[in-house]
């Protein structure tokens, strides 16, 4: 917008005789070579930053001059930099809102108390919106800090700095040397329940020392600390100090040092903890030391020291690059760029930028957004694996706050902002264009497409070892998992009844044989009868003997003797024909896979390659090919290991009492792995990935919708 010099509201302001309250102090700062004036309100701890032009105006406020006189004077002195009347009014309003302005009139108490009430309510609402970052001020540590200063002061000197460098450097070397010991199985160690408890107990103490670090450094540099309290970061009480006095420090290195003090203290603590950890015996002390290192290291690296999140690192960073208020300004700057270049707004309000700052702002805006999303995703996924409900709640909260709210604001801006009055069509066009192209990209560009399902390792039928006869397993003759040759006995079954029956039949045959021998030659008919009965008894005996022989189970092929649940087998009764064990030739092993009905079509018709992954060796993949396909879909499973009962993913029909039928229908495939070397044992579950080449998302979506329609409406 082009600036208009005059304001229709000027008459309301012109007669006021403002002056600054005595508690307001103004500091001169340089940011990126530009002069700024920072006004500090010593009662509220607020800071306002002004340009030299605004500073001139403020300096003219002496309680005697009217606003009109001040403006006239500033017009004479400032030339083209003159503040417009509207800008004057905003400046006065800003000062008034910060309670640093004193007028000549009777103060409007109702107005200021209303303002205070509103501010209080706003804070409360912020607390509600963001319940994880509530601050409870508790005490004024200034006197404590002053009293203990003599003890701490020697540390904040060149000698102290040398000691610090020596300790941290040696700790860093030691940490490097002991790296494997330190990081071995770190996730399990950290997430163990007692470890978390200890971490929760240690954390506030470490942070308290950290915060005191800020306090001491600030005090040493001449600032004051008047508030200390508790903050709840993700429900975890963490102490904080109000170090807003830092902004009054003149040199950026001083400001950065106050910001970095916490990190330095933690680094020092972590170094000391490392020494303890290396030298202490296993026990409580060592565990605490480990946790201190963890806090000092991980939390500093990922959170506190990281400039992309609004913690200490951010303030240090923004002080060092001389870009105060980096976070919000970077977002505004990005918005400005979008308005100007994408939406074609001719004179968007440019956020004040110093030379060379633009790059930082763009970088910071994008990087910090991505990092915040990343950190949030990590936190949520870690929490969700342990406490699902909390994880979901956190995720919703994060989505609303980090995506929903900004998105809503953007949409509102797009549709209602007066800035876009003339360019709304273009802005909407550009926005929908970008969204459309992203959607197009996602929908139309072919993306790798695959189906992942589960299978079990299986052996072809012929090498299954069946029980030749019913009986109780007596012993395993061959050792399980041993290699056996064809014809080698594997398992001995025992059937006492069969033995008895052999005896009976033998006796019967013997009797008949005797009767035949003692036959009456004169009665050929009877002789014939006895002979017939003898033949019958002998045949019976042969049969029974054969069944007895069958009690010894032999291997039909060469291979490895595989007995599922070998220890359970002896003493168990088995029926004839029951599967007892397997003799597996490794190269013969196949993988039987079931594919849900939805995916059956693509798996049947469009498979480029098949890969297997094993549960016990997640990093290894083995390629495979489809060996056999059962042409119909069925409701059975090759192995219960694939069902949810067995730890798989297929849901069984709960109404089926035998628990073998599945709810949905499945396509059965048999895969032949390219190599069987690392194939897990018979019956193990494997993951199978069918790659279908690349396909755009749109087609997949279409197929999915088609299937839904087919299923629900038969169209």
């Amino acid at each position, binding site marked *: 917008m*082009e*600036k*208009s*010099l*005059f304001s*229709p*509201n000027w*008459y*309301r*302001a012109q*007669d*006021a005789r*403002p002056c600054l309250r005595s508690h307001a102090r103004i500091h001169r700062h340089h940011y990126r070579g530009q002069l700024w004036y920072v006004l500090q309100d010593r009662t509220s701890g607020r800071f306002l930053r002004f340009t030299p032009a605004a500073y001139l105006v403020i300096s003219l406020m002496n309680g005697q001059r009217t606003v009109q006189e001040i403006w006239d004077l500033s*017009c004479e002195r400032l*030339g*083209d930099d*003159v503040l*417009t009347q509207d800008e004057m*009014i*905003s400046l*006065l*309003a800003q*000062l*008034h*809102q910060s309670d640093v*302005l004193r*007028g000549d*009139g*009777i103060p*409007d108490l*109702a*107005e200021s108390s*209303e*303002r205070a009430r*509103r501010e209080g309510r706003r804070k409360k609402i912020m607390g509600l919106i963001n319940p994880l970052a509530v601050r409870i001020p508790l005490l004024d540590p200034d006197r404590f800090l002053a009293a203990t200063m003599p003890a701490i002061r020697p540390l904040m000197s060149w000698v102290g700095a040398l000691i610090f460098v020596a300790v941290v450097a040696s700790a860093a070397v030691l940490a490097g040397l002991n790296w494997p010991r330190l990081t071995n199985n770190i996730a399990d160690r950290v997430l163990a329940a007692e470890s978390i408890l200890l971490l929760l107990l240690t954390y506030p103490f470490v942070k308290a020392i950290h915060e005191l670090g800020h306090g001491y450094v600030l005090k040493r540099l001449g600032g004051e600390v008047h508030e200390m309290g508790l903050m709840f970061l993700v429900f975890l009480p963490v102490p904080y100090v109000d170090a807003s006095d830092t902004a009054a420090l003149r040199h950026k290195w001083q400001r950065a040092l106050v910001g970095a003090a916490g990190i330095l203290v933690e680094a020092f603590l972590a170094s000391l903890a490392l020494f303890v950890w290396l030298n202490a015996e296993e026990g409580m002390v060592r565990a605490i030391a480990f946790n201190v290192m963890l806090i000092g290291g991980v939390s500093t690296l990922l959170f506190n020291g990281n400039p992309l999140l609004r913690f200490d690192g951010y303030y240090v960073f923004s002080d060092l690059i001389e870009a105060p208020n980096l976070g919000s300004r970077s977002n505004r700057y990005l918005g400005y760029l979008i308005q100007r270049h994408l939406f074609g707004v001719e004179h968007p309000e440019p956020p004040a930028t110093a030379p060379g700052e633009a790059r930082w702002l763009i970088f910071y805006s994008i990087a910090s957004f991505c990092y915040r999303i990343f950190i949030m995703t990590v936190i949520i996924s870690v929490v969700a694996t342990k406490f699902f409900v909390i994880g979901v709640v956190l995720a919703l909260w994060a989505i609303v706050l980090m995506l929903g709210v900004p998105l809503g604001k953007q949409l509102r801006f797009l549709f209602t902002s007066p800035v876009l*009055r*003339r360019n709304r069509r273009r802005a909407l066009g550009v926005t929908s264009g970008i969204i459309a192209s992203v959607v197009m990209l996602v929908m139309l560009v072919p993306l790798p497409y695959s189906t992942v399902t589960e299978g079990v390792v299986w052996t072809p039928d012929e090498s299954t070892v069946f029980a030749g006869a019913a009986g109780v397993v007596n012993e395993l003759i061959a050792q399980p998992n041993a290699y056996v040759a064809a014809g080698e006995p594997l398992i001995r079954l025992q059937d006492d009844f069969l033995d008895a029956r052999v005896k009976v039949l033998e006796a019967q045959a013997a009797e008949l044989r005797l009767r035949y021998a003692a036959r009456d030659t004169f009665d050929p008919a009877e002789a014939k009868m006895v002979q017939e009965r003898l033949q019958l008894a002998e045949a019976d005996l042969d049969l029974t003997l054969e069944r007895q022989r069958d009690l010894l189970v032999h291997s039909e092929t060469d291979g490895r003797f595989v007995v599922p649940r070998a220890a359970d087998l002896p003493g168990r009764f088995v029926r004839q024909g029951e599967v007892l064990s397997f003799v597996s030739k490794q190269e013969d092993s196949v993988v039987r896979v079931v594919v849900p009905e939805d995916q059956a079509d693509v798996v049947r018709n469009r498979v480029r390659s098949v890969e297997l992954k094993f549960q016990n060796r997640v990093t290894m993949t083995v390629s495979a090919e489809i060996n056999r396909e059962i042409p119909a879909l069925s409701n059975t499973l090759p192995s219960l290991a694939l069902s949810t009962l067995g730890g798989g993913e297929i849901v069984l029909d709960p109404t089926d009492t035998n628990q073998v039928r599945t709810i949905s229908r499945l396509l059965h495939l048999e895969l032949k792995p390219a190599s069987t070397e690392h194939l897990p044992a018979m019956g193990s579950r494997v993951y199978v990935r069918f790659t279908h080449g690349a396909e755009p998302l749109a087609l997949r979506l279409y197929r999915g919708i088609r299937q839904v329609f087919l299923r629900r409406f038969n169209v």
Partner: protein
Amino acid sequence: MSDVSGSWTLPPLVYHPERPERREGWVDRLEATVTAWPVVVRARLGDPRVARLVASVNALEDQHLNMDEHALQTSTEALRVRLRRDGFSLDAVAEAFALVREVSRRTLGLRHYDVQLAGGYAMLNGMVAEMDTGEGKTLTATLTAATAALAGTPVHVVTVNDYLAKRDAENMGPLYKALGLTVGTIVHGLQPPQRQAAYGCDITYTSNKEIAFDYLRDRIALGNQPSSLARKLKRVQGSRQGEGTVMRGLKFAIVDEADSVLVDEARTPLIISRETPPDREQQWAETSLDLVKQLEIDRDYKILRTERRVELTRAGRDRLAGLGDELGGIWRSSVRREESARQALTALHLFQKGDHYLVQDDKVQIVDEYSGRIMADRSWSEGLHQLVEAKEGCTVTGQKVPMARITYQRFFRRYQRLAGMTGTAREVSRELWAVYRLPATRIATNRPTQRRHMRTRILKSAELKWQAIAERAAELSAGGHAVLIGTRSVVASETLSELLTDAGLEHEVLNAAQDKHEAEIIAKAGELGRITVATNMAGRGVDIPVDERVLEKDGLHVILSERHDASRIDRQLAGRCGRHGEPGAVQAMLSLEDPLLELIYPFIIRWTSALPRYCRNPVALFVFWRAQRRAERAHSSARRALLKQDQKLGDLLAFSGGLE
């Protein structure tokens, strides 16, 4: 009933009572939107107490009928005490209404109908009473005003113009006087002492403009701090601030034509200003105009007509810089120089004589685009007026620098109790609730209306329309009717007037240029065979007496030559006929070239125009309906935006005590 201990405690005396400005957050706005529905529905269903009230009043009627003057006076005195003590309890109100009715019958010869009692009661409860046009709103208001005044509340009866204020105060005066109440009238041109006296009366009749300006002047006198404490402190300091105020605060207002004042004119800014030295302004304005006459359109500046503003290009600015350097002085400052140039270009290209202003007696007079009236004593701000004066070669006057400003919207929200009456409220009832917390209730008509609505004619072009209107007027006039033709703008009324003159038809024109004869023209508009052309300013509160002979021939015939931005205004104009249950007829004659249709995509109009005759009419009617809806919405959201903006401005200006 209140007990004895509390019964004689009078309400606390408050210096300049008014409702403090509430700062509305989004919760308040949400609440207003949500509660609007139930409130509107409830108000529509009517108050169950009304039937009881009417019954009690009627019951008391006989008793009062037989009282002599002295007895009436005594019971009035007793009633005053009772009202003051008990407040507006149903019984007390019933007694008051009965009394007012009786006194009215005796003094004015007018007896309030039952529906008027209902209307009066609604207003006493802080509602807007929607009563059909011609149902005697003026008389209804006496019930409320007198009751409130008897209870000791200063009452302001706010009308839309001085004429109505004066007329109503005069007509109703005897009634109030008989009740022992004083009545004051505020019209334009009164001096402060007279105003103070008028505001000191129990009941004050005034126009919305006068009262708002009086309020503003008081605020200036009080130094923006109407609090008693502040005033006392000032006095201790020896300041004479706060003297010379005329009003007693904002206690209770009855707003006549509530929708017009509270909604249509809500955005009108009322500004009190002082003047800067004219010679300096003349020099500045002439230099500015000279400067921009050296600029070239499109190269040096662009005119954005839709937004009504001018934009300087880079080339234009450079050129101005060069020219400014030669001139020196304030022209050296780029901000001031470019500001002046933009204003000068705006004056040259965006303000047209006839449309936006008229030149009369060496003066530039602003024409209100809304009503077509000349806004006397109004001027544009930031030097624009001076530039237009210089452009037209008039004497350049001093610039008016605002000293205080308010909108009706903000002003009426400050009343502690607000009531209204109008013929047309239902369209804006939700807005009345959201903004003023005024529920609108419908009051039944006393006698069934005999107004006939004739088929709307929609013609293809404006020319055809005016022709058709002229023919129709001639036909009706010859047939012994009286015709009132409503137009939207002064220009339209003049176009029509020319056509009528060409056709040799005698007629009267009532528009901005001639509003001095307003009352006279209105008085004659109902005569046999008379044709009157009026801009929509004639639509409100005007009671056109219709000749007996005309009434025999189905009454006054109103022709609406255009639809207005709000259907309420059309209904108001239609309400000029068929008043008090008399016969009357209304017909709209529109064209597809009417300005209202600019809100609709042109291709839709073209399609409509291309339709065959028999289906064009319904489609065109729908298109008009859409356009009207759109215009109403746009106005409504503009009013909402203004309210929000005012609030923001108040926050911004908090350091100087906020807005007036």
